[in-house]
């Protein structure tokens, strides 16, 4: 259970490599690339937050900063009132790609978050439980390279969920899954969230995911990004976009905000 306060968050990269085009623009060596500036947000305990925004607007960057992987930023982030200093297994991160250690089997990867458990039996049971949950039963001793892209994502989700983290950061966790698996795992995450009520922050490109899952939707615009929409949802779950006019309206609104003229 953790609430998150983001105050005046800003991030820029210094461009190191570039093909020089017009002097003075973003492509200059040494030029400062502002990814986002002055982001102010507050997430409540146990909230499921979905962040939407165009590619390259800094969603992954923001998530990495929140998880403590990147300490060079302006402003501050407070988790339960404390500044984050470093990554920790209280806040598990599901990476956009390649997050599994390729030299470890599925079993060993899931074990990472549980390796300090004293009780061997409990450890084994937990590992098996989460592997079963993401339907990788029978693939325990496969290496990531022997799994399909979707199976790798599921293994990574299992590894993250098995830790039972205070905050779960997910960077496009459903990308690369086939449609049915996508829906299934999404439902699984929603159930999990309803059950454990931990704070979950998810970046996604799928507006429908946000509508189905989120307690709060954040929309960013292009670089340098600002929050162009923040919306709290209190529709009951399970949600059905087609049967819920409020969700349909919200979808139209998000599409409009993102500059897509959406024809229902």
């Amino acid at each position, binding site marked *: 259970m953790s609430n998150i306060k983001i105050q005046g968050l800003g991030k820029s990269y210094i461009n190191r490599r570039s093909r020089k085009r017009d002097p003075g623009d973003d492509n200059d060596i040494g030029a400062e690339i502002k990814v986002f500036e002055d982001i102010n947000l507050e997430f409540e305990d146990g909230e499921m937050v979905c962040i939407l925004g165009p590619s390259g607007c800094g969603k992954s960057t923001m998530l990495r900063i929140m998880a403590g992987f990147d300490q060079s930023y302006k402003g501050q982030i407070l988790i339960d009132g404390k500044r984050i200093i470093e990554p*920790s297994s209280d*806040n598990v991160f599901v990476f956009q790609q390649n997050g599994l*250690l390729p030299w470890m089997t599925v079993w060993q990867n899931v074990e*990472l978050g549980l390796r300090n458990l004293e009780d061997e039996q409990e450890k084994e049971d937990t590992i098996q439980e989460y592997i079963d949950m993401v339907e990788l039963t029978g693939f325990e001793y496969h*290496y990531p390279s022997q799994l399909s892209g979707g199976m790798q994502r599921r293994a990574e989700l299992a590894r993250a969920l098995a830790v039972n983290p205070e905050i779960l950061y997910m960077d496009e966790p459903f990308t690369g899954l086939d449609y049915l698996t996508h829906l299934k795992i999404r439902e699984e995450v929603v159930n999990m969230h309803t059950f454990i009520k931990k704070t979950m922050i998810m970046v996604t490109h799928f507006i429908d995911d946000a509508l189905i899952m989120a307690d709060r939707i954040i929309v960013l615009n292009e670089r340098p990004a600002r929050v162009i929409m923040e919306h709290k949802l209190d529709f009951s779950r399970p949600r059905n976009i087609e049967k819920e006019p409020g969700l349909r309206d919200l979808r139209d609104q998000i599409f409009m905000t993102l500059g897509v003229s959406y024809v229902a």
Partner: protein
Amino acid sequence: MIFKRNFILPIVSFSVIIALWELVVVYGQWSVQVFPGPVAVMNSFYELIMNGKLLKDSVASLYRVTIGFYLGALLGIPLGIMIGRVQVFKYLFNPLIQFMRPISPLAWIPLSMLWFGIGDQPAIFLIFLSSFFPIVVSTAIAVERINPIYFQVAANFNFTRMERLSKVVIPAIVPEVVTALRLTVAIAWLVVVAAEMIAVQSGLGYLILDSRNALRMDYVMVGMIVIGIIGLILDIIMYELSQIESVVASRFGR
């Protein structure tokens, strides 16, 4: 089918070479002393096996290569890891190593004989030099190329310093290091023969040199053939090492 082809084709090429060899000997102008044929060499081969000389010399060479190579790997891999992980070590050692590396191990022969005298030691020292630098450099490069995501995973799961080394760095570099070791064994095997021609009184290099002085070209050829065979076996061993399942899996982490 593929197995058969992989097995038969090398036999074909070897047979052709031996046939050509025999043809050149039969129709060429050289005397048996200068250019012995396959049959004569086979007889000498048998002779050298039976009197134990071949085994003794092979063991002597393999011993030097093994010790020198192990020393090179034992010191080279940790140093490479430190150079790859710690900026200070990188700037401290990298220029020095890049400067020493292009100096052929053979250029060290005079100094090593002066320092270590005659015997196993100077030869081992040369093998060590020829293994150490390539291993350090390959290891350092492999460490630097580890995908930073794996260190983020390590940080995320609160790895200790030791765990980061044993669960991330070492498994991540294994494929590259094994490849480097494979190349290095080949270099070491080349160097040992040269070293034995100068610094010692045993080994396959010495066998060749000694036989030349005695004008026994058949023994020289036996020495060459044995060097080839052992080199091949060493390479097969190193190749098998690189095919272990978890090593193969690591290779996909790039």
